Structure formats: structure tokens, C-alpha cells
């Protein structure tokens, strides 16, 4: 059994009379320790997939299984616990609490999970040694995203979900962040899902899932991913 299994997952949003099929029978699987890129254009349904995978939204139909547990059947509380202990999130806009220092932002996550990593250690890991006491506004975008990654990693998650992690970053910084994510995946053994509209990232992934109009268009695996530095876009 794969680490992540989506089978026939459908998500229908209802707004008044209109029905919107954001996901329409999505099925795919991701193995443990893989770096998976979900790629698709705007509105293709990748964020919906992320929401369901991350336990932020329920499914209308189908099953989502993570590490042998059927997430799609979790109740609200179980979902919260799942997010708390199993999933780490990296947002496009970092979503750091402005009022907390880098270290404190990491602690915000680590203080609530079972076996957290040391916050300062994690910051060092993401290359932010010496910036522990800085506030987000004192950090560059890349640094902020590093803090976000550190925050996600500090929880020792099984799964790292990244929503357009480079979306708000310049080319160079974006690459550095992707490198960090890749390294994290390989060194820590964390399954990393990167959601992006940038198809250029496909070569760096172990597995690429292409989404279009709420369906999985294709799923391919890269036995030999290209190092990030070699990818240009």
C-alpha cells in the first residue's frame, strides 16, 4: 500500500444554485519519502487536492488514505490532530505571525506537537542560524519562507505540503527554497508534496501529477530526478 492514496476523490462546492466540481474522480498514489510535484494551471483543482490531503477540507466522495489511515473519514477533531502531528504546511505567502520572531514562529508549531524538533536547531537546518531573534519584517522573502519550512519541519511531520512555495519569490531564491525542500525530503525522509503551476519543476520530482479541470491528467515517475540547479525556467 502506498503512503498516500487518492481514489475517486470528488469535491463539489455548492454556492447557491451553482455546483462546482473542483475535483472529479481524482486518483493517484505517492510513495513514502518521495518528492511529488502536483502541477496544473490556475483553477485546475490542485489546491482542492492540497486541502483534502492536508485535512483542511472534507471530500464529497472517494477516499484519501495517508499512511494507512483513511483521512477522508476523519471527523473534525481527528483532522485537526492529523494536521497537528502528521502534516507540515508551507504557504505561498509564508503565513508567518508577524508579531513573533523567527524562532517563536517555529515554536508556535512545535509547542503543540508530540515530538518536536528543537526550534533553533531547525532554523539552523534551514540555514537561518543567527536569525532566530529576527521578526518576519526584518527578513527577506526567502528567509521568511525558510522560517515557514522550519516551522513545518519542527513538527517532524510525515508529510510536507507546499502550496506554491516559490510563488512569491524571485528566481534565485525560489531555487534555493526548492533545494531546501529537496534536501529535506531526501535527508529527513519526509514525503514532500509541492503544488505549483510551474511545469518547469517537473524534472526535479520523483513523481509528477498533472491536474487539469479537476481530474488527474497524467502521473509519471522520474527514476532520476534532475538536480534543481540544472533546471531553468
Amino acid at each position, binding site marked *: 500500500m502506498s503512503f498516500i492514496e487518492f481514489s475517486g476523490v470528488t469535491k463539489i462546492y455548492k454556492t447557491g444554485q451553482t455546483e462546482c466540481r473542483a475535483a472529479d474522480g481524482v486518483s493517484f498514489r505517492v510513495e513514502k519519502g518521495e518528492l511529488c510535484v502536483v502541477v496544473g494551471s490556475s483553477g485546475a483543482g490542485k489546491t482542492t487536492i492540497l486541502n483534502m490531503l492536508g485535512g483542511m477540507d472534507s471530500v464529497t466522495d472517494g477516499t484519501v488514505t495517508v499512511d494507512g489511515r483513511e483521512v477522508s473519514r476523519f471527523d473534525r477533531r481527528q483532522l*485537526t*490532530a492529523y494536521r497537528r502531528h502528521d502534516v507540515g504546511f508551507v504557504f505561498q505567502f509564508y503565513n508567518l505571525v508577524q508579531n513573533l520572531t523567527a524562532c517563536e514562529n517555529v515554536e508556535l508549531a512545535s509547542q503543540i506537537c508530540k515530538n518536536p524538533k528543537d526550534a533553533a536547531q531547525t532554523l539552523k537546518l534551514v540555514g537561518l542560524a543567527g536569525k532566530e531573534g529576527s521578526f518576519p519584517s526584518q527578513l527577506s522573502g526567502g528567509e521568511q519562507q525558510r522560517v515557514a519550512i522550519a516551522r513545518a519541519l519542527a513538527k517532524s511531520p510525515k508529510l510536507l505540503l507546499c502550496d506554491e512555495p516559490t510563488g512569491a519569490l524571485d528566481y534565485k531564491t525560489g531555487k534555493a527554497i526548492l533545494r531546501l525542500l529537496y534536501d529535506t525530503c531526501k535527508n529527513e525522509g519526509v514525503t514532500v508534496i509541492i503544488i505549483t503551476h510551474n511545469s518547469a519543476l517537473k524534472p526535479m520530482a520523483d513523481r509528477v501529477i498533472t491536474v487539469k479541470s479537476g481530474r488527474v491528467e497524467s502521473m509519471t515517475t522520474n527514476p532520476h530526478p534532475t538536480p534543481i540547479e540544472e533546471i531553468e525556467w
Partner: protein
Amino acid sequence: MKYIRLIFREIKSSKARFFAIAAIFALGVGFYSGLGSTMPVMKKSMDSYADSYNLYDIKLLSEYGFEGSDLDSILSVENVANAVPSKSADVLTDGTALRLMSLTDGINGVRLLEGRMPQNPGECVLGRNKMSGNLAQIGETITLSDENDKDTLSMFKTRSFTVVGIAESPVFPSVQRGAASVGQGALHHYAYIAESDFDTDYYTEVYAVLDGAENLQLYTQEYEELAMNAADALENSPLAGVQLERVRAKAQTELEKARAEYESEKSDALKELSDAKRELDDAKAELDSANERISDGERDLERGKAELEQARYESESMLEAAQRELEEKSSQYESGKAELDKTYAYLLSVYGKDAADAQTVSARAQLEAAKTALDAGRAELDVSRERAERELNAALAEIAENESELASARAEYQSGLQKYQSGLEEYNAQSQKAEAELADAEAELESAQADIDALEPPEIYVTTLKDNYGVNAFSQDAQRIDNIARVFPIIFFVVAALVCLTTMTRMIDEQRTKIGTLSALGYGRGAIAAQYLSYSCIAAVFGGIIGILLGNTAIPVVIFNTYKILYSLPNVVLTVDFPKALLAFGASLVLTVAVTLWAALDSLRAPAAQLMRPAAPKSGKKVILERVGFLWRRMSFTSKVTCRNILRYKKRFFMTVLGIGGCCALLLTGFGLKDSISGMIPRQYGKIQNFDMTVYLSDDNDEARAAVYDNSDDCIFVQSTSSDAKSGSENLECYIFVPEKPERLSEYISFHERKSGKAVEFPGYGQAVIAEKLSSRLNIGVGDKISVKRTEGDYVELTVSGITENYIYNYVYMSPKTYEDMFEKPPEYNQAYVKAADPKTAGENMSVNDDVVSVMNSQDMMDSFSDVFDSLNGVVWLLIVSACLLNFVVLYNLTNINIGERVREIATIKVLGFYPRETDAYIYRENIVLTAVGTALGLWLGVFLHRFVISAAEIDMIMFTRNINVLSFIMSAVLTFVFSALVNFFMHFKLTRISMTESLKSIE
């Protein structure tokens, strides 16, 4: 058109925000204009009551009473439209004071509540008593008790009245009915009876209404001027002179009558005396003549007796002589017979018989004739003797009769004489007495004449409605509400402005991009600002209208209804105080505009391009606390976060703290007001004054003192007279208090400072101890001078030697010596403070004395004061409830904004796996801390606000306690927290509704 649609769409999409602004302005405007219109509503209601029942404007009392003819003089005074005389008397029934009044036609209408009006003699309609209950029910009888003095009872034709109706009279709008002339001093009940049930020929008072008074509102200056002018005119009218002339003429006529009577009685008496004298003299003459007659009789009797003796002697001797002659003749006859017999015997023997016979015939015949003569003589003698004897006996009897007759005549004379003598004595006594009596009567007449000559014009007491206890008290109560109304709404407005400011700031922040877009599209700053101005002004106007509508109906009605406990007013007459309402309205609009512009200023100044970009998030900062390393290190992570977050948005921090603080201060003020009001009574009558009753004396004399001494366990006499105290430009009504025995005063009144409790010494010579209110109002302390009015315009200066805790009336205490020297007259002790185990009985016993004007039971005073202030408590509760309301609106709104600003943050921590409770706590912790800080600030501010409100709400004669109970602090804090918790509870749902997908959205 599109523009307006835009605004309305904006309102539709942000209902909570719109209604928050509207609600806060509704509260502010509603409170300001509602509380502000309460006094006008109360006064107008009283005015309408007075008008619809034709309540008098002027009441006249005269020492001489009134007669029907006096009305002409009263009606001739300018502005007097109508005048109706009335009879009344205070009587005791079952130990309570009842005023019986005659029904007056056309003035002082009676509002019948049940039953009917009196139609027959001996019926009455009884005034309702809401406090202690009606004196009797319909159908029951009220009987004037025997305790009433005879003069009072003689004023009525009957002593019992059947209650046929229950009514209320505008003359007694308050449950406190003022003073009574009987019983323990307070009037409790009143009843109206037919005038014909009074047995007096004079009226006790006259009620008058004035021209134009109906069109003027009671309590207005115009009305009071009208009334005062009329009162002056009446006082200066010839009424007193007319009454004097009338009374004098009447008295003179009566005196003349009395004099005539005296004269006739005098002459009668004199005539009687002289008659008696003559009678006595006659009797004396008669007696004398009787005495003479008796003496004559006696003399005659003696003579008769002697004559009789003579006659008896004569007749006896005559009879004896006749006896002797007879016996001689008898013996002659015997011897003749014997001779004859012898001769015959011879002859016979000699001559025979014939011859003898013949021979002896002549002799025999002779003898026979002699014998016959003898017998006849004998018989004659017997008859003579018998007749003599009979005659003698008759004479004797006559004499005896005369004798007894004389004796009885004598006895009669003697008794007659005795009678005469006693009669004479009596006459002498009577005549002396009559003389004295006449002299007395004469003197009496003389003095009566002198009295009449000395008659002075009667004192005419002209009072206006201002002197009516209930009518005046009502306006004072209304004034008190108004004093509070001046202070409270200001806080509401401040809070409203704060709420509006934060809300609009948030709104404009949220719509930054939109502003940028509009700006980029070429809309001018004015147009953009106008949109927000319109939004907030529509909210303010909407709230203002609702506030005015609700505030002007609900608040006056609620307050009016609480006062209905104390006053009997039929209906509330709502009136909108338009200037106040418009002022509130205008103030709210100005505030809104100012606040919105201020909030919008930053965004409007920024160039469009900058606005299109997301605002740079407010950067985090180290807080001061972090510099205190040992403390910061010890804080848990969450408290560090809370601490940072609180201090991050300083503006919001101050808004929230001020908002919560304001509400908490309001709560504390409300509770504190209640404490101050209700706490004053037990302190005044427990801690300060320590006696059971106050006795008011009209004159300080031995009998009055005896009446007080005899009925009390212990007492002291004091002088307490109304005066005026001033210092600089401030002045305040006060009472000059002079105890007769200063050394004993401490047993009755405790002199101590309020805060420290330190005892205050009785003032020395030239010094005075003053009540605290005097000190605070006149702004004088120990060692300063206080000026006390001696006579009009003439003040004396005393040195303040101490300030003592006191709440009711403003006393200036001084020694008798100081008073006597400063005021140039000895003190007149007109009150007695009395300790008595049974004040009720003691009071009744003392009241018997004429110089005991009234007796006030301390317990009764406590009760009546408590009644008054209990009604104020209703108002306090209204304030507390609205403070709670305000508290809720403020907290809800601010928390709402807080959450609105941090949706992204909250969504993020939810994504991070915070449980709902942890998410709530993340926000609530801040709320709780802010509430705590706000509460602390509020409790601190509340003390000052309370002090301010207290000084505004209290009337001159009274000082409320400045103390706020610990419980009130606790209650205010707890209530603030309860509302905070309540708001948190509501916010929980809002927090749950925040979607985690918000975290994925780009920053707008």
C-alpha cells in the same frame, strides 16, 4: 445613483459593522436625549396632572380663617382667576394623622380610582396610600379617635365617616405628605368630605388659580414668577385689613352685646338685692309687730287670769253666802216644821184633827211655801254654782288656749327672727359677692375692649405650589435625574467615538485596495472619503434615530415608573426635548465625520499605486517586558505571544482598554451610586446621630421641657436654625447648631472625620465645627474662616476648628457662648434630641403639650429617606443595565475587529493544527488580559466618575457617602468579565467559521 447603490451594497455586505456603529450611536444618542428628556417629561407629566385636575396655584391661610366675603378681596387681586374656600383639619384616627378636607368645586379636582364621590353626610373619599396601604377600604368606617382634642372634634358634625371611594389628589402627589399638626408629626392619610360635614362657620384656607397659569408649565421660571407675583399681590392686598375690620366689628358687636347683657344683669342683680333688702326689712317690721302683739296678748292673758281669779273668788263667796242663807232658811224651815209638827200634835191631841188641821193649815201652808222657796233657792244655788263653775271652766280653757296660742306665736316669732337674721347674713354676703362679680365683669369687659382695640391685622400665609411638599419634591427628584443625565451620556459618547474610530479604521484598512482602485480610476479624494463618510453617517443617523425613538420613550417611562412608587401621577406625558435630541444627533454626526476622516486620512493621502499593493504588515517589535530578562524567560510561550500581540496594536489596545474601562467605570459608578445613596442613611442615623427622636418646640418653657423630660430616658436641648454659610463666592444653606450642654453632645452626635475616623473636638470660643459638605462645597478646611448669616446681609465669621462626617443637612456647630456673643442674642433651644425606649408612645405623650410642635421618630425619618432613595435605585439599575449593554457592544465590536484583522493568522494556526479550544484561547487570552487591564483602569476611573456623579446628583441639603463597597468593585469587575466571557462565547462561533483556506489566499 450608482454611488448610492454602492454605499447600500457596502452596508448590506457588512451588516455587523454597520449595526455596531448604529448600535453604539443609538446608545449614545438614546441615552443622552432619553436621560435628558426625563426631567422635562417628569415635569410635564406633573404639569399635565396639575392642569387636568385644576391644581391650585396659590393657597392662602389666615390666622382669622376665611369667610365667603373674603373671596371678593382675593378675586379682585390681579391675575386671580378663581378662588375656592375650603375647610380642613388634621385629626387622629387609630393613632395616625389624617387630614380631612372639604371637597372644593372647580379647584383641586380629585381623581377617583374606585367607588364614588361622597353624596351623603358622613361619607368620605379616601386618598390612596401606596406606601403604607390605604387607611380603610370602601365600605369601612373611619372614626376620629378620642385622643383628638375637643376643639378639633367640634369642627365636625359627625365623628365617623364611611369610605365610599378611593382617590388621588394632585394636592398630595407624593407618598410623603408633609407635616401634620397632630400625632407624631408626619401626615399619613387624607380624605375629602362634604363641606356640610364640617360644623364650622369659617373656612381654613382658600385655594386660587391664576389667569394664564394653565398655559405655563409648572416649574418654569415664567410660572414661578407669575405665582410669586400673585402671591406678593395677595400678601399686599387689603385682605388682611378687611379681615381685621370684619373681625374687629364682629368682636365689637359681641362686646356690646356682652356689655348690654352685663348692664341688664347688673341692674337685675341690684334690683334683686334691693328687693331682698326690702323684703328683709318688711319681715323685720312684721316680726317686731308680732312681738308687740304677743307681748300684748301675754299681758291681756295675765290680766284675764287675774280677773278670772277675782271672778271665781266673787262667785265662790257669793255662792257660799247663798249657801249659808239657804242653810239658815233650811234650818228655819226645819225648826218651823218642828214647831208646826209640835203645834199640830198638840192641836190634834187637843182639838182633834180637824181643828188641828184647820188650825195649822195656814202655818202648814206657810211652811210649805217656805219649803218650796227653800227648794227653789237650793235649786237656784245649784244652778248658779253650776253656771259659775261652767263659766269658770270656760274662762280657764280660754286662757289656756290663749296661752298656747301665744306660745306658738312666740316660737314662730323666734324662728322668724332667726330666719331673718340668716337672710340678712346671706344678703350681706350676696351683695358683697355680686359687687365683686360685677367689678370683675366690668374689668373683663374693659380688657375685652382693650383686646379689640389692640387687634392686629391677621397674618396671611400665601403659599405657591413651590411650597407644596410633593410638587416640590418631585421637581427635586427630576433635577437629580437631570444631574446624572449630564454626566453619564458623555462616557457613552466617548466610547461611541472610540468604537466608531476603530471600526472605520478597520473598514478603511480592509478596503485599501478598493480605495486604490477607485483612486486609480480617477475618483477624487473627496468622493472616496464621501463614501466612507456616508457609510458612517448613515449608520450614525440610523442609530441616532433609533436612539432618539427608544431613548425618549423607554428611558423616561422607566424612570417615571420607578418614581410612581413615590408619587401618584396618572400618566406619563412624553415630550421630546428637541434641543437636546438635536444636540445629541448633531454631536454624534460631528463625531462620526471627524472620526471617519481621521481614520481615512492615511489611506487617502497615499498614492494609488501604493494602495494597490498590500499594506506592509505591521512589524513585530520587542516589548519592554523582554528587556526584563528574568521575567520574560519565566513566561510561557503562549503568554509571550499574548503579551506581544497585545502590545503590537497599541491603538487597539488603548481603544479596547478605554472601552472596557469606560464600561467598567460606568458599572462601578452605578453600583457606587447605589452604595452611596443607601449607605448614607444608616451612617447618618447609626454612626453619627445616636438618638431615637427629635422633638420640635415652638417655645422653650418649663412645661414643654417637662413634657420632654417626663417622656424620655435621656435628652438634650439644642438650637437648630436655618441660615446661610459662605466663603468667597460660594454659599450654601446651613443650620446653625448650638447645643445647650456641649459637654453632653457627644452622647448624641458623634464628631469625627469621615476618612480617618478621628474624633473631632467640640469647637472652642469663636470656633465652629462644620459638616463635611460645607467644607467641600465652600472649599474651606480646618483653620479657615466660615461666614455664617446672622441676619439678611449680615454675616459673622467663625474659625473652622474641625470637619465632621455628616450626610443630611449642613450643620455649623458652635458653643452657646460663641453664639450668644457672635449673634448678639441668647440661643433659643427649639429642638430636643431624645432617647426613648418606645419613641412612638413617648412622642404621643409629648405632643399633648402645645409647645411641642412635632415629633420626628428617627426610625421614621430613616424609613422615609430610604423610600426616597429606593426610587433612585431604579435609576441606578437603569444605568447599570445600560453600562452592561454598552460593555457588550464595545467588546463585541472590538473583538470582532480584532478577529477580522487576524483572519489569516487564525486560519494559519488552525492549519497548523490548533484545536478549536486552543484557537479560542489564542485570541481570548488577549481579550482576557485586555479586559483585566480595562477593568483595573475602569475601577480606578470609576472612583473618580462616581465622585463626580455623586456631587452632581446630590442636592444641597444632602451629602451622599463617598464610599463604594468592596462588593461593588467586585460586582463591576465580575460583570465586566462576564460580558467579556459572553462576547468570547459569541466569538467562538465566528472563530469556528473562519475557513482554513483563508490561509492560502494572497494578502490583499
